[in-house]
Structure formats: structure tokens, C-alpha cells
């Protein structure tokens, strides 16, 4: 497989991976379009790394298939060896080879593709320029800082122009500032090269900055896959709502044309709601809520009397925690720095029913 192939589209269908009784990945479906950047986001043990390693060809699926441009590359019966997939990968440990210099690390994949010496030198020089490592080309990895090592890993992976670029928690070993910087670096490089990319992370911030779409994974399944904005504003499950940003969950019960919540109720017509009666859960983001000292004028929004239980000032905003009157359930509210309240204040909480997102009932555990 020669370098410089066009980006490919990747298709995972019914993909499962079982280790004995433990199911790491459970009948997973995913389509990654050519040139798209998709993140697999989820907590430890959700199966995202296993999924990535199945895409790379390191792990054999126990069911399902992986197709690259329509051709099956993994199935329980046959797995195309990783070296024949034309992909590249960035590992959590970077896995840059300490016995080779920076330039040798980067040139490795090109040599395997039998490029001429001059062509290799030119490409290596170019990519090191791009990742700002040109001056360190002859250093050994042990002589580099963590961020520099990370950029070597990036350069080594993208210089071969992979059909698919895989990243396994590449930033988790960096300090916070560097991590912030590298997110944008990764996105910048994607904008330059437009490789089909699958990125595994447990950090929603990283996923939001880098990705075209994010697949939130839980217990071996994809809970939801959407663009970052949609995912944030329209989470479909409580798991997704909780995992992406902070959120408040409101448990309600629909009877007739009203939905009753602890301490207040709303007409069903104002809410996005299904037809059936019974228990319903809504997610509402802390900044969709507002606090005021006076009862607001009656209108579209619902207003509830609450008391302020906790507060924290974050510089750009306040985070208040209020207790609902009926069962003391707590909700987080984000407010502008100028809206100052004290713990113990009796306040009015206003919520916009249009910003309340109904969630699918929890399917499992």
C-alpha cells in the first residue's frame, strides 16, 4: 500500500469484541466519511480503545465487520494485518522509538514505502517544519520534552499520508497547558491534511475542539453520535447529557396534558414530549436556567421558588446550586458575574421549557 492514498471512508457494522464473559464492544455501528474527524468519547472501560485497536487490526472482532472503502478488512474469520491497512496511529505512550533520532522516527514509514532518499528527506523536512521540530531533527527522543515527543509522534503518523489516522488518548500524558495547545494543533493539522481520523479520548473538551462528530460510548455501545453542538444541545440519553458538559436532570411524570416535576408542573404542550403517559426525564443545562430575587412575570417560562444552597465563583461565571422546595433536589445554575446572590437567599428559578431536552429512558444499568 503506497503512501498518499486519498482519505478513505470507514464503516463498522455490528462490531463486537468479547473476552470470555466480558463484552468490551457490543454490536457497534459507525460510519466515518472520507476526510472526517470522529472522536470516540467515553469513560474508562467503555470499549473505545478496543474499538480503535480493532480498526487498526491489532484486535480481532468476535462479530461484525470493518470495511475500508467498502472492502472488508476485519471480520471474525479474517483480519487484514495492521501493516497492510495503510493507516497510522498515535499511541498513548507515543511509542516513539528511543533508538532512532527524530528524523529517523519520522522517516521510518516513508522508507517502508520505498521512497527515494531525496523524497524522504524533503517530506521529513516539510513535516518537521509543520510540527515545528525542524531544529531537533537529529536529537534522540530521550533528549526531548513531552510536548516535543508528542509532536514527533504526530509527524511520524501523518507524514505517510495515511488512509485513516488513529489517535489513542494522545494528550493524556501532557500537562494542562500543553494539552490545550495540542488540541488546536491536532485540529489545525486536520484542516491542513484532511485525513479520515478516529480519535479516542475521555476528555470532552478535546473531543469538542478537534472533532467533526463525536461518538459517545458507554458499555461497549455508541449512545449517540453527532456534531459537538448537537450533542451538547440535544443529548439523547442521560449518560450523554451528563458526560458532555454539566447538566441537570429533571424527573417528571406525565399525566393527561400536564407534566409534573418536583415543586412545579408544566403543560405538556410546552415541552417536547412523547405521547405516552408515565415517567419522563429532561436534561437542562445550568446556563439555561436563570435566578432572580423577584418573581418573574407570568409567561412562557416556568418559575419556581428555591433557596440557594451553594455557590462558587469561577471568574467568567457563577455556579449556584439551588434546592427545589418539594424534595430538596438540587440544580446547578450558571449566572453572569454581576448576578450576585448569597447562600440562604430565597430566589426564583426560571426555566425555559424549550431548552429542556427529553431523554430516552436508560436502557441498561
Amino acid at each position, binding site marked *: *500500500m503506497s503512501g498518499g492514498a486519498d482519505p478513505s471512508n470507514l464503516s463498522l457494522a455490528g462490531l463486537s469484541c468479547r*473476552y470470555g464473559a466480558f463484552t*468490551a464492544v457490543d454490536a457497534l455501528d459507525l460510519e466515518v466519511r472520507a476526510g472526517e474527524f470522529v472522536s470516540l468519547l467515553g*469513560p*474508562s*472501560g*467503555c*470499549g*473505545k*480503545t*478496543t*474499538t480503535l*485497536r480493532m480498526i*487498526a*487490526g*491489532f*484486535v*480481532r472482532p468476535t462479530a461484525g465487520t470493518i470495511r475500508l472503502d467498502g472492502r472488508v478488512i476485519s471480520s471474525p*474469520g*479474517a*483480519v*487484514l*494485518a*495492521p*501493516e*497492510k*491497512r*495503510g*493507516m*497510522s*496511529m498515535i*499511541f*498513548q*505512550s*507515543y*511509542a*516513539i*522509538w*528511543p*533508538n532512532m533520532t527524530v528524523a529517523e522516527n519520522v522517516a*521510518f*514509514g516513508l522508507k*517502508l*514505502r520505498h521512497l527515494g532518499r531525496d523524497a524522504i528527506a524533503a517530506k521529513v523536512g516539510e513535516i518537521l517544519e509543520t510540527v515545528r521540530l525542524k531544529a531537533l531533527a537529529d536529537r*534522540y*527522543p*530521550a*533528549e*526531548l520534552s*513531552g510536548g516535543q*515527543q508528542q509532536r514527533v509522534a504526530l509527524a*511520524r*503518523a501523518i507524514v*505517510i499520508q495515511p488512509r485513516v489516522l*488513529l489517535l*489513542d*488518548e494522545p494528550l493524556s*500524558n501532557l500537562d494542562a497547558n500543553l494539552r490545550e495547545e495540542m488540541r488546536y494543533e491536532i485540529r489545525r493539522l486536520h484542516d491542513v491534511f484532511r485525513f479520515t481520523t478516529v480519535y*479516542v479520548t*475521555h476528555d470532552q473538551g478535546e473531543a469538542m475542539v478537534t472533532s467533526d462528530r463525536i461518538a459517545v460510548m458507554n458499555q461497549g455501545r455508541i449512545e449517540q453520535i453527532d456534531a459537538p453542538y448537537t450533542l451538547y444541545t440535544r443529548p439523547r440519553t442521560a449518560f450523554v447529557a451528563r458526560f458532555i458538559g454539566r447538566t441537570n436532570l429533571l424527573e417528571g411524570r406525565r399525566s393527561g396534558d400536564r407534566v409534573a416535576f418536583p415543586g412545579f408542573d408544566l403543560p405538556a404542550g410546552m415541552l417536547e414530549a412523547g405521547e405516552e403517559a408515565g415517567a419522563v426525564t429532561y436534561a437542562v443545562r445550568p446556563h439555561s436556567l436563570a435566578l432572580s430575587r423577584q418573581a418573574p412575570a407570568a409567561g412562557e417560562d416556568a418559575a419556581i421558588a428555591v433557596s440557594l444552597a451553594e455557590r462558587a465563583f469561577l471568574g467568567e461565571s457563577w455556579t449556584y446550586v439551588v434546592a427545589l422546595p418539594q424534595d430538596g433536589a438540587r440544580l446547578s445554575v450558571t449566572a453572569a458575574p454581576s448576578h450576585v446572590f448569597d447562600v440562604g437567599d430565597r430566589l426564583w428559578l426560571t426555566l425555559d421549557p424549550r431548552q429542556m431536552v427529553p431523554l430516552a429512558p436508560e436502557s441498561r444499568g
Partner: protein
Amino acid sequence: MTGVPSRLAAGARPRRLGAFLRLDPSALAWMAVVAVLVFLVVSPLARLLASSFQSPETGAWTLANYVTAFGRMRNLEVLGTSLLYAGCVTVVAVGFAVPVAWAVARSDMPGKGMVRALILGAFITPPYLGAIGWILLAGPNAGWLNRAWMALTGASGGIVNVYSFAGLVFVTALYAFPYIFVFATDALDRVSTEMEEAATILGASSAQTTLRVTLPLVTPAILAGAIVVFLDTVALFGTPAIIALPARIRVMTLQLWQYFEYPVRAEVAAAYSLPLVGITVALFWAQRLILGRKGYVALTGKGGSRALTRLGPYRWVAFAYALLVIALAVLLPFAALGQAAFSTAWGQGFSLGNLTLQNFVRLATDANARDTIGHSFTFAAATGCLAVLLAVVAGYVVTRRLMPGGFLLGILCMTPLVIPGIVLAIGFYATYSTPPIALYGTAAILILAFTTRFLPIAYVNAVAGLRTLNPEMEEAVRILGGSRTRAVSRVVVPLLKKSLIGSWLLVFIPAVRELSTALFLVGPNTRVISVMMLDLSENGSFETLAALGFVLLTVTIAIVLLGYRLVGRDFMLRRS
């Protein structure tokens, strides 16, 4: 890392062999090498196993050989003595090896090069030669140390007696500890200073850091070396023959020897030694138990750096201890042997008229002797290369779980060491001296037998090295388009270069001095030094024997120093 840990994931390698082969052609090469390996170890051992259950006359199946071997209390006691002996030797050897290894690898002790070279000098010294040296030093009546003591104090008797259990353990440990030394320095060289700094910053003293952080990190290496020492001692014949016998201590190998006196009962010898394989297995379970699930020194691919512990005035204490160990193992015994090597008649003691270089001239001018010395070094070198190659492949297949039953493959690679050389040689001779594979009389049969015998050492070292490599570094090769073979040749081998050269030496050195296997398999044109030494000791040419010991020591130290030079730039060390 999230999700399933990568090691577990790597463990889920394809179970269906057919598909695996079809899709990964380099796997064929792995399989072939593993098959060779199995063949090399399994067929001689299988032959021994079969013969241990057969009546030599009729070929019928029987347990009689085991009854003969273990049916008597006396023989069981001997077995117990052997295990006690090996256990004591292991403990003493750790005491010799670990402090010196730490000082050489992690401190600013002076004279490191000399200490390293002389410890390898101790390693090359055939144990029986070292034992003879120690008889000259610590013989109760005429030993140098005892005579010096009597001259100084006017006492009527000496203070040390080599012919005792303590003497036996001490002398054996002196020539076995280099195994642990080599394993431990290799691992200590790789401990990142950051780990030590992390302890220091929390308020640990240097000593605490060393004892609580550094040494525990290299426990697997020390343990691996200790296992090798234990197994090697159980199967050792030379030192017990020279010291245990006069001390009236009975060990297993001495007992075993008697099964080769007429009437020969080789099958009883096989029955007597095969249960030792059980000891190997038990040791490995113990090792697993001790190491548990703790993580150890890992080379992550993020690089590491190293700084030496400054000992201040204590570096002279460290140096004194290292000097003591090498004095006991090399300087003193070789001084005693040197008296013989440079004498016309060693029994006359020191005198100018008795001084001569004749013994060396005789070795240098005798074409037979030159050939023999040449054979030993070339066969041992070939053995080193072959054993390291096989060990890396087997170790790789086991640690990366490329095939089911890896644990068994590991055990198989470990068993030959504990089978006494003479018994293994019989299995080998039976398998490879008759058609279809008639290798007797060739260099190949010696090299193959040495390889089998010392494979365990290379294997233990290879696995210890491979465990410290993060598999992601190989996966990085593969995802970029390189095969497994390339991952091993371009990444694994270069990263383990130092450790592999260490392995090579660990095999090369005992192969140079190996006697019991060689004795059985040498042909007219494949004589080796150890067999020549036996001849010389049998006809009482002690002067030439000692001179040969000196040649062996000098040539090996030269080879070792050359080896270290070849290792070249050490890319892991930033701040040394």
C-alpha cells in the same frame, strides 16, 4: 489508557490458526523457529523420559527405574542436601552480586570497569578450576590462608576449612554470582532516575530510595538470576566432586555419577534427574507469586534519564566490598593457580629457579592445544548467537502471546538447565548421532547441545528484557506498514541490544567452560578446552592446567571488553 488494557487486548490474538497463517505470512517464520526450538528441546527430553520408564533389557514399560532412583532413604536425603546446597548458594550469591551490581550501575564508585571485567573473569573460571584454587588457599593443612594465619599468630591449626558445607557453598557461590550480577546490572541500568527522584522528593534518604524503590524495581531481574543460579547449582558436578566428596557431603550429581559406573544404568539416571523439571516449574510458580501483578521497570517509549547516586566517602566502602568479592573470586585463587602456571614443578613452591613460561609456550606451540582453544571459543560464540536468537523468538512469542500455550513453551525453554549435562547429552546423543540426523563428530552437535543446555539463561534474560518494552512501540511499526519481523529487527532488538549482548555473554561463558555435555559429544576433530582440562587433570599435568586457566581468563576478558565497546552509544542515558 482507557478501555481494556492493551496487554489484555493483545492477548486476544486470533485463536483460529488457519486464518492466522493465511493472513500473516511472517507468522510462518515465527512458527518455524518455534518448531525448531521445540524439536531441539523436546525430542532429547522425550527420549530421556521414555527411557526412564523402560526396562533397558526388554524395552517394556516399568516404574522400576524410579523405584531404584527414589526407593531408598539415602537417595532422598541426597536430593534434600542438593536442594539445601543450591538454596544456600543462591542466597550467598545474591549477597555477593546485588550490592556490587548496584554500586557499578547506580553509584559513583571508582574502578567500575575493572570490577565488571574481573567479575566476568570469575564467571569464565570453570567452577572446578576455582575450586582447585580454593583448595590451595583454604586447605586445612597446607592452604595459603591457613599457613599465613599460623605464621602470623603462631596458632597450631588453620582457621578456614574448604572441605566443609560452608566451604562448598562459599566456593560455588563465588563462581555462580556473576549470573545475578549480569541480570541485575542490566536492569539497574534501565531504572529511570525519575523514579528515584520521586522518592527523594518525598523525603527518602539515598539508602531508603535504594532499598525501597530501586532494588524492588529490579526484583524480577534479581529473581531471574537467582533461579538460574539455583538450577545451575543443582546440576553442578565439578565443585562437589572436588570439595563435597572429601568433605563427605553427598549431593545429587555425585550420586548420579555412580549410575554411569558399571553396571551402567543410564535410565535410572534419567529417572533420577527428570523430576528436577518439577523443581523448575515450581520455581516459576514461586516467581509469579512473588512478582504478583505489580508493574516493574518499563521502557515506555517516552525515554528516560539517569543520574548516579553520589556516595561521597562511602564510595570507597563500596569499592572495598567490590574488591573483596573479586579478590575472593578471582585475585586470590588465580594467584594460587598462577604459582602453578608459572612453575616448572608447582609442588616445589616459590623459587626463582622454578619460574618458567614453559607451560604457556607449550600451549602456544602445540597445534592440538591451539585448535582446541579455538574450538571452544568458536563453538561458544556460535552457541551464544543461536541461543540468543532462539530465546528472543521464543520470548517474543510468549510475551506477545502469539500462540496458545505460551506458558508451556516457557517452561520448555527453562527445563534443560536443571537436567544434569551428562543426562542431557545422552538424550542428545541418542537423538542426533544416528540417521536420519547423524551429527556425531561434527561441531553442529556440540553447538546444538550447548544451545539447548544454555537456552534457559538466554530465555530468562530475553523475557525480562521484553517485559520492559511497551508493545505499543512494535504496534507503531506495524501500523506504519512494517511487518512483525521488521518490528523486532528494527525496534525490539536495537532497544534490547545491551541486554542481548548480556545474554550472549551469559551463554558464551558457560559454553566455553562446559564439560559434562562436551565430554559425551566431542569427536576427534571437535575437542574443547574443558575436555582438555579433564585430560590434564587426570594425568596430573597441573602446571599446564593452570596455564590453560590463565589463557581462558585472559582471552575471555578481552572478548568481554570488546563486546562492551561494540555496544556503542547508549541512547538511553542522558545525564550519566
